[in-house]
């Protein structure tokens, strides 16, 4: 089999981004302050979640998001299932509209990424409200949303890098 016809391996387009996103979350969980402010806490897994839905439909991203969400919960001490649920709730609509998103400009994709992040935050907000009986701070949710939305260029890079990487899907 020639190098051109080699299929894209799951470890490359799902495994590696998942590992990098979790490593970034691990680094950002360090208890330090810069200029008196704590480090931001973006939901780094939203980057591959959005990109995977656009790159191609497959079974592995759903499993990766479930496992990645559980890893985030272990790291952050969140209730089990909260982030898996939130990430999958954002992944599903993007997957459903991937045909609409194909060929759109970067600005439009950025807006869609923002909407997907908003959906993930809203799911987490509702789940936390249901679990604790207290409404989580909208300001804190907004800050985390903002810190996540600015990561869109990374998602765009993943899409551009892997969308045409497998000749079977060209």
């Amino acid at each position, binding site marked *: 089999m020639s190098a051109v016809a080699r299929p894209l391996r799951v470890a490359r387009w799902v495994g590696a981004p998942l590992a990098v996103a979790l490593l970034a979350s691990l680094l950002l969980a360090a208890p330090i302050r810069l200029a008196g402010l704590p480090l931001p806490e973006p939901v780094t897994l939203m980057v591959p979640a959005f990109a995977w839905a656009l790159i191609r439909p497959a079974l592995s991203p759903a*499993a990766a998001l479930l496992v990645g969400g559980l890893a985030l919960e272990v790291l952050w*001490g*969140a209730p089990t299932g909260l982030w898996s649920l939130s990430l999958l709730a954002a992944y599903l609509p993007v997957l459903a509209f991937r045909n609409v998103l194909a060929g759109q400009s970067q600005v439009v994709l950025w807006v869609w990424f923002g909407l997907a992040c908003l959906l993930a935050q809203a799911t987490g907000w509702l789940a936390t409200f249901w679990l604790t009986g207290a409404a989580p701070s909208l300001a804190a949710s907004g800050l985390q949303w903002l810190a996540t939305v600015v990561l869109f260029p990374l998602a765009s890079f993943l899409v551009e890098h892997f969308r045409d990487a497998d000749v079977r899907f060209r």
Partner: protein
Amino acid sequence: MSFRDNPFGEIRLPLALGAAAAAVVALVVAFALLMIDRRQTYQTEVYNALRKASDGVVAPVTGAVATPVRWAGDALQHVGGYFFAASENRRLKAELAAAEAWRERAVALADENARYRALLGLAVDPPVPMVTGRTVTESRGPFANTRLINVGSERGVKVGHPVLSENGLVGRVIGVAPRVSRVLLLTDAASRTPVMIQRTRARAILTGDGGWAPELAFLRGRDAARPGDLVLTSGDGGVLPRGITVGRVDRGADGVLRVRLASDAAPVDFVRVLLFEDFVRLEDLRALNRPAEPPPPTAMPRAPEPPPATPPSREPAR
């Protein structure tokens, strides 16, 4: 029957449909996990083995991975400290001058308090032992505000123990592994802490919401709290000791009375865990009624003889 003879061999699930089905199945699994967690979260006895094990693994890994980040942060703080050394020196001198006057007053009051306690035969709170730990990770998001610290059950830490920084209360332990503990911060949406306003002694419940300043809920009485009032733990319920500094009252942008936490004044890198036993869970409640120490020798000439202290009751405290 060979594979080619399989009557379903030609059936191909559309790829998009298969991906969506897998995502829906994963969604259902995540929701089921959330349901299970909801039943277990606040039953500390069943803080499940998986969490303990994962905390035990995450702590050293995170500690090692985040070390360069911590070094970078320390270096930046060092540079900042160098440039602001003069202004900090002025501020510290002013604080020291103010503290000198307070120190003499505090020594006199401590002496007076000790005498009164001895004269009245009060069974005061015994000194609470503590262990010091370092924060390994922290989560600051809207849905979880917790920290992992590098002391655990091997050092005597138990679920429910209060955790303090040098400035005030940080939270309480919600999970313990042999060498690591998970601390629920006061700002977490699941955190509820009984507090009182120092000026009015009004009680309230400090309710976290994932934001920077938790809300003062169930505050009763007219003018019970004003911005700037000091907030302390009330000790109600026996879960936390009374009188630990929590912060100062502030009014949020939404008009709600909130508490600006004292522990936010500096990075919470090192913490102290009070090995405080909730008195309602003591095995021997008679320990609460041990007689007080005899009064200290007085320098005052011809001091009147103190009345004999009432023998303490041997009945357990209710």
